[in-house]
């Protein structure tokens, strides 16, 4: 029997029972739709978290003062419980696995222009800072090493500051006041958005750390030191290296607990990624149960259909259909039904994911592989659950089948 006539036959028989076909397909439609929506939501969350990791900076390592594990009097007795510029310089000169190191001095003060003022965070950093944070300047440029060494009063503004104080103009070249100190704006940072915890990363002004120390905070201690490992594979070794350098710098070689913490923020973010990927898998697994239920629905209908069409099977056999012809016919019917259901489910899944994303404000994305898996799986469901009824039809005795009332 030709493929074309097989398909026509299956299509005809499916069309003859529109209502029943639709109800049967519904199981698969819901199953595939659910899988697609779940995967889209889970995958969207994962993509968002990955983007946030990227936002944190490339291979970011954060050195902060104090130890989270240690506390109490003994710590207070040590002289070196703060990070200094010396620490940052030592890490920069001694470390072999780091590509960039920047001290970070954090103060909060008022940014004042002719048009208004805005209280924000001032970060005193080195020229490596943007490399570490994977950040770009959209207009103007970052200060140079020369600016740092000369302690020049230059500032780079975050996007939020520009939005609030320079709504319609390019601030590069303008004069601003940080507290009482006049600064020249030499650059504007790219908008980076919020962190996962909701902190606006663009609400910041960058100045040379030397200037910050001298003119703004007056502190000799650093809030933190940021460093960037040369490659993701070096992360663990680089942190170990930093720890060694820091212990040496803080005179802890003889023993004693660390009075600083070296953290790798990507590890936290990666934990979040793997959590969402487990969640995605879980959601998809639950959704695929409905696919199996849909498959059982197909089997049920096909079994009813075989009984109902016993006489038809008898007629087909009498005019020369082999058992295998009948088997193929019923199998094609169930596969066509479940494939159609799969395609409709795919459309509904995409639509549903888009609506959900729009309404709930979630980012959704469906990987192409999920489409193939869902459609392939629905075809497989058709074959698997269609086989038993088809086999039953093929095994009928033509005489009995013709006599069936």
């Amino acid at each position, binding site marked *: *029997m*030709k493929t074309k*006539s097989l398909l026509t*036959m299956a299509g*005809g028989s499916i069309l*003859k029972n529109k209502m029943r076909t639709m109800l049967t397909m519904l199981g698969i439609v819901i199953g595939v739709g659910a899988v697609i929506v779940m995967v889209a939501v889970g995958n969207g969350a994962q993509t968002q978290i990955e983007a946030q990791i990227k936002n944190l900076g490339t291979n970011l390592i954060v050195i902060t003062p104090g130890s989270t594990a240690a506390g109490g009097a003994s710590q207070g007795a040590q002289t070196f419980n703060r990070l200094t510029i010396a620490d940052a310089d030592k890490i920069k000169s001694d470390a072999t696995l780091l590509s960039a190191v920047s001290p970070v001095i954090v103060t909060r003060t008022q940014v004042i222009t002719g048009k208004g003022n805005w209280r924000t965070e001032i970060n005193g950093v080195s020229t490596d800072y943007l490399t570490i944070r994977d950040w770009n300047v959209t207009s103007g440029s970052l200060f140079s090493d020369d600016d740092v060494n000369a302690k020049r009063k230059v500032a780079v503004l975050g996007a939020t500051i520009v939005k609030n104080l320079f709504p319609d103009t390019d601030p590069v070249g303008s004069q601003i006041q940080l507290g009482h100190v006049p600064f020249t704006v030499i650059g504007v940072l790219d908008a980076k958005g919020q962190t996962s915890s909701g902190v606006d990363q663009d609400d910041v002004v960058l100045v040379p750390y030397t200037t910050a120390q001298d003119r703004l905070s007056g502190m000799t201690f650093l809030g933190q030191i940021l460093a960037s490992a040369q490659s993701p594979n070096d992360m663990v070794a680089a942190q170990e290296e930093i720890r060694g350098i820091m212990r040496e710098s803080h005179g802890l070689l003889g023993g004693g607990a660390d009075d600083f913490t070296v953290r790798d923020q990507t590890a936290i973010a990666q934990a979040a990624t793997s959590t969402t990927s487990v969640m995605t898998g879980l959601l998809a697994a639950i959704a695929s149960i409905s696919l199996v239920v849909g498959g059982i629905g197909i089997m049920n209908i096909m079994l009813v259909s075989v009984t109902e069409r016993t*006489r*038809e099977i*008898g*007629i*087909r*056999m*009498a*005019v*020369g*259909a*082999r*058992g*295998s*012809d009948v088997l193929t016919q019923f199998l094609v019917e169930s596969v066509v039904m479940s494939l159609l259901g799969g395609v409709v489910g795919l459309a509904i899944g995409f639509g549903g994911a888009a609506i959900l994303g729009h309404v709930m404000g979630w980012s959704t994305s469906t990987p192409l592989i999920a489409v193939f898996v869902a459609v392939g799986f629905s075809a497989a469901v058709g074959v698997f659950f269609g086989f038993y009824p088809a086999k039953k039809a093929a095994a009928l005795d*033509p*005489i009995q089948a*013709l006599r069936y009332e």
Partner: protein
Amino acid sequence: MSTPVIEISGVKKIYRMGETEVFALRGVDLTVTAGELLAVMGSSGSGKSTLMNILGCLDIPTAGSYVLDGIRVDGMSRNDLADLRNRKLGFVFQGFNLLPRTSAVENVELPLLYDRTARWTNTRQLAAEALERVGLGARLEHQPSELSGGQQQRVAIARALVTQPTLLLADEPTGNLDSRTSIEVMALFQALNEQGITVIIVTHEPDIAQYAHRVIEVRDGRIMKDHAVAAPRSAADDVARLDAEAAELAAGVTKEAA
């Protein structure tokens, strides 16, 4: 004498029903030559249906041999039997057995689609021609539910004819039809037989059997009588006479009214 289409000898069919054995056929010998119009008669339970099933390659005998158009049938596999039915046989049933919700032409096309030798190219065209042959050329797209009993049986006959079978097997073809339509269907069988097709009709109505050239009677699983009909009735003449009578009657009614 022309070549035999059917040669069966010593054919027995035994059904096992638990402990007991039921002898449906107790040894049947029969030869049918090409071009015959044969009626098989017998009451229910006589074994004529079993004989029909064996002749139709739907069933295989427990013992004995069956040669159809030179092909040994007994001992064939299910698949070979299916192919043989497709190539050599055409069936007409009492209950028409058309596919519901399927047009006449699609019903007739069905056997052509199951052909494995790829000898048919334009199946739809052939099906339409077969329907033309039985006088239903204008009803190709009608579904069985839109056709009268006689028309449905014609569709079934067209389906049996379309593969140009060696043998046409009709199992109580007039059982569900009124007497006039029955005679019309018999006229069609006679016409097809005159065109050279071998026809076997299973019936329990003597009225129908009188249109055959040869009648065999089956009783208790054996052939009891086998005789040629000296002067078979012409169904076409009977139809014509019925028409004439009806016309006369109508004329009489008109006269009375006048």
